[in-house]
């Protein structure tokens, strides 16, 4: 019962906060609302027994990515934008498309038949703790994608240097 109450709070608050995020005129307010959104999502992960994901969500999104956002806003001095028109002329098209997608998703979930369960049941994950479970799967069965991700990170580093360096020889 209490778990359900927490779920309802996190879910509704997440939706409300994201709507506030996209409707703010002041970029700084929008970013701070997004920070709230990240915390609520982390709460949802906690309710799913995924404490590792919750921690990662807070450390990476609320920590690292948010700081980047704030830096960019401060460097660009986006306060000027407050006076400009906030939405383009075709904003209602976006709203219609989003509502359409939302309807399709909601309709599809009515017909959702959950598939087979793997041998990682909730009881087993709780017993072994979520972090240990992810580690075991990641370094055994999903070793190959994990290695490929290291290449992706390398490309990201190269890309950041290529795009940000002042003068390339």
């Amino acid at each position, binding site marked *: 019962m209490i778990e359900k109450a927490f779920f309802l709070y996190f879910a509704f608050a997440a939706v409300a906060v994201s709507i506030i995020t996209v409707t703010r005129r002041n970029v700084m307010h929008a970013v701070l609302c997004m920070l709230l959104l990240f915390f609520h999502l982390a709460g949802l992960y906690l309710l799913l027994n995924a404490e590792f994901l919750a921690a990662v969500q807070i450390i990476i999104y609320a920590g690292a990515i948010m700081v980047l956002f704030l830096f960019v806003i401060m460097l660009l001095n986006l306060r000027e934008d407050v006076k400009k028109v906030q939405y383009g002329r075709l904003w209602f098209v976006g709203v219609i498309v989003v509502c359409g997608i939302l309807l399709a998703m909601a309709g599809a*979930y009515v017909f959702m*038949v959950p*598939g087979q369960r793997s041998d990682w049941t909730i009881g087993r994950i709780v017993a072994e703790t979520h972090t240990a479970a992810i580690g075991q799967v990641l370094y055994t069965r999903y070793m190959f994608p994990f290695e490929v991700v290291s290449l992706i990170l390398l490309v990201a580093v*190269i890309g950041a240097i290529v795009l940000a360096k002042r003068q390339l020889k």
Partner: protein
Amino acid sequence: MDIYSLHPLMPEIVLALLGLCILMLELTSMKKEYIALTAMTGTLAALYFLRGSSGVLFDGMYQADGYSNYFKLIFFLNLFLSILISIKYLEVEKSSHGEFYALMVFATIGMMIMASAENMIVLYVGLELMSLSTYVLAGFLRHDSRSTESAVKYLLMGAFSTAILLYGIALSYGSTGTMDFQQIGLYINSHNLSGNPVVLLSLVLIMVSFSFKVAAAPFHMWAPDVYEGAPTPVTAFMSIGPKAAGFAVLGKVLVMVFPSLRSDWTSILIVISVLTMLTGNVMALVQTNIKRMLAYSSIAHAGYLLLGLIPGNYESFAGMMNYLFIYLFMNVGAFAVIISLRSAEFMGDEIRDYAGLAKTHPVMASLMLVFMFALAGIPPTAGFIGKFYIFSELVKSNYIWLTIAGVMFSVVSAFYYLRVVMYMYMRPPEREVVLETTPPLNLALFIAFTMIILIGVLPQAFISHAKNVFFTMYQSLL
């Protein structure tokens, strides 16, 4: 796990080492030509390991077989030819070499992983590796605002389509409980999920996402701007590589994951392919910039390639793959000519710039003539053979109206390809065009020209070889 069990993965491993090597070479200030030479030698070495590489690895997540190897051959040739045509371009732009080739190599690894993926997670990381590298490549000329704009547009559209793909994957995982291609297909079949709206939605989302990747209408809007703004060798590289990788995945996913929804995806493909051929060919008619025209032409070619997927049997897939193979040479050839016109003070990417090229540079004009004829699909060039096989497979599967539409659209396409030829041969030269060719560029032109003529004149040898290569895989699949 001993090293021999990784044998099917050797081409990827060699390329990854090559990428790291190139980055190191860039540090030690050697002559820039050596870096390109290393990159090409490494590509050939990886090609050597591709021979006879087959097998299943990592719990069936990765599979090297005839199908993926054929695509990998296309990726290698694409990488090799793109490096050949980049050398001069990078010198003109005074840009850095090492990172450029390294990113191309990493993008190619991503494509190879996509073609070999048998699991949604592997597919996704391969896709990310490829896309991330191509985003950076598109914006490689940082001081050029067009290049930066093209990179930002590509990044936004790419992120958007990847999100759609992930949604599709999540839905199929939710309703089947597995990430493995074959397992999903079997589960959908055995639990009668083919009429389930969630599964259908997942199919639609995955198809929409890859329509973005291969620039099929109505998800093509990003392509012209990105292709025009990106550095010309990158345009050549990404109008073939990511497109071929997208088709490799589409073919595999449709046949392995959603075989029980065949009637659904056939009708979606018919709509998308007709729309793509229409938009690509009609919009190409009014372009004045040749890179932009080739972008629309590449959209139109995506339409013909989608036609090859519609019958869904192994012969039509063979037709699609052969077409990609042929398209590689026609496209690289055309872009090589564009690059040869580029010099420090002359952009050379307007169609007007080609006026009178036949009088001032007859050899280059005749090469461009061959490439344009091939793209339009006029015999005896290879372009005709490619279209012929796709259309004949369509007729065999009784898609008569679709074939007629395809032929009509290729007639329309002849107009804008031949307009370039008309400018070269029938207009007086407007200005003095100085051609700057280098031996590597000439080599690329030579390879493209020879292959187009060779496949055009001796199609039988080529086609039968291509069929043999991946017959085994499709026998087990269909």
